[in-house]
């Protein structure tokens, strides 16, 4: 399946590049509409906006996320320590093999996407050139892997990820993570934090794919820009802004996700490897789900 997807994507890319070889969407006649519009009040001002944001903020914000979030979690770990659950209870089967394979794909892609993304952002400190160029291409290839995983993931977890009352309560107590006390936290199969991460990773992820793909292909002539009533270059500018802004959130949540699964909850990583969660963990962290399971069993 993966290979087929790669072929499909590659073929469409080739088509796109052939289409634009004839008449560039950026440097052809369209260049004119772009130039007089740049920086004018009545225009969208995406050019100056992008320049302003990228020139002044994006890199600093990424640096803040890269250093800040791990630092916060380090403090959290030191102050509250990990949550430890009994391994003596029953093990509950929560993730099917298919779930796990897909998640693995997504995980692999993220492990590539995030560092390579950072390599691009901080390319200057790496001296640019071949290293960062490869990082950029790797970023693109990993996107294909992610694209393959995101759709099934979206489909099989969609229903359980729909918002519920529990989530509000969960957010009020921040999942109980700001306490050393072991308590039952209101949550279904997935808690409020996981749900936000899910929606960000799927819908946000799709937006990231589209904006990233646009920037990667750049001079594609599919009439998309025209359809949106904007010039190709403005579309690209918008893509760059959106891609960066979304990346802040995605990266932040990705770090959180990693911290939770690896450090904050001892052994929780196993569930996505084996498919089973400790009963104790489910009982405390996904109390509503646990109750539901019990009822089903009784019945």
């Amino acid at each position, binding site marked *: 399946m993966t290979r087929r997807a790669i072929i499909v994507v590659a073929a469409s890319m*080739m088509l796109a590049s052939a289409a634009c070889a004839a008449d560039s969407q950026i440097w052809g006649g369209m260049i004119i509409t772009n130039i007089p519009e740049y920086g004018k009040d009545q225009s969208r001002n995406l050019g100056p906006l992008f320049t302003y944001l990228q020139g002044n903020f994006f890199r600093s914000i990424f640096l803040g996320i890269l250093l800040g979030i791990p630092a916060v979690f380090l403090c959290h770990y030191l102050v509250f320590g990990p949550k430890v659950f009994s391994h003596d209870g029953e093990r509950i089967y929560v993730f099917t093999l298919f779930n796990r394979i897909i998640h693995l794909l997504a995980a692999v892609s993220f492990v590539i996407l995030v560092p390579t993304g950072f390599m691009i952002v901080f390319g200057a400190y790496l001296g640019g050139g071949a290293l960062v160029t490869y990082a950029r291409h790797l970023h693109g290839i990993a996107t294909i892997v992610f694209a393959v995983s995101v759709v099934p993931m979206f489909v099989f977890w969609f229903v359980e990820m729909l918002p519920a009352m529990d989530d509000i309560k969960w957010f009020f107590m921040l999942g109980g993570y700001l306490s050393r006390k072991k308590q039952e936290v209101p949550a279904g199969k997935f808690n409020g934090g996981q749900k936000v991460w899910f929606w960000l990773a799927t819908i946000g992820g799709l937006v990231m794919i589209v904006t990233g793909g646009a920037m990667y292909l750049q001079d594609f002539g599919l009439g998309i820009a025209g359809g949106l009533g904007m010039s190709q270059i403005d579309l690209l500018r918008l893509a760059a802004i959106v891609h960066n802004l979304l990346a802040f959130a995605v990266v932040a949540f990705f770090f959180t996700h990693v911290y939770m699964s690896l450090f904050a909850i001892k052994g929780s990583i196993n569930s996505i490897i084996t498919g089973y969660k400790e009963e104790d963990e489910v009982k405390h962290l996904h109390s509503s789900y646990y109750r539901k399971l019990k009822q089903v069993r009784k019945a």
Partner: protein
Amino acid sequence: MSNGQARMKFYCDTTRCIECFACSVACSEAHELPVGISRRKVVTMHEGIPGKEYSISIACMHCTDAPCEQVCPVDCFYIREDGIVLHDKNKCIGCGYCLYACPFGAPQFPRDGAFGTKGAMDKCTMCAGGPEETNSARERHLYGHNRIAEGKVPICAAVCATNALLVGDAEEVSTIYRKRVSSRGKGA
């Protein structure tokens, strides 16, 4: 300019430009650019409408506050003391940010391979080459001729059929243009 240093600028007098493409072809030919890469472009606005039609030649304008230089994630741009904005192709990763920032659509990206991915950015160097050794074969290969180092004017402005395209110190360019406009009198 604050320190009295000249700032090299291009200016295209639209009352003179006749869309003859000399600048564009001269540039491609001198620097042996692949077809499809046009460091310099000529475009016509309002074509066919008497009184409104004009043509203009566009390339990198070597901005004082070059937006491309501000957005480059790998800092491949550098601005010479005379204001010429150049870049290091060995550093460039082809991300396209400079293109998004540029008001003039100057940065160009060659297509490398079947995937249509972008190679290192290419743009007008004002015929001043790049960071490689001056007039070396490597510099010529990556950036084209370094006419400035030879004491020559950029080929596009040198060749301009109607002297529409001017290049030089910003103040002097504007003096020439002012002189043209004032001698034109009130006619037209």
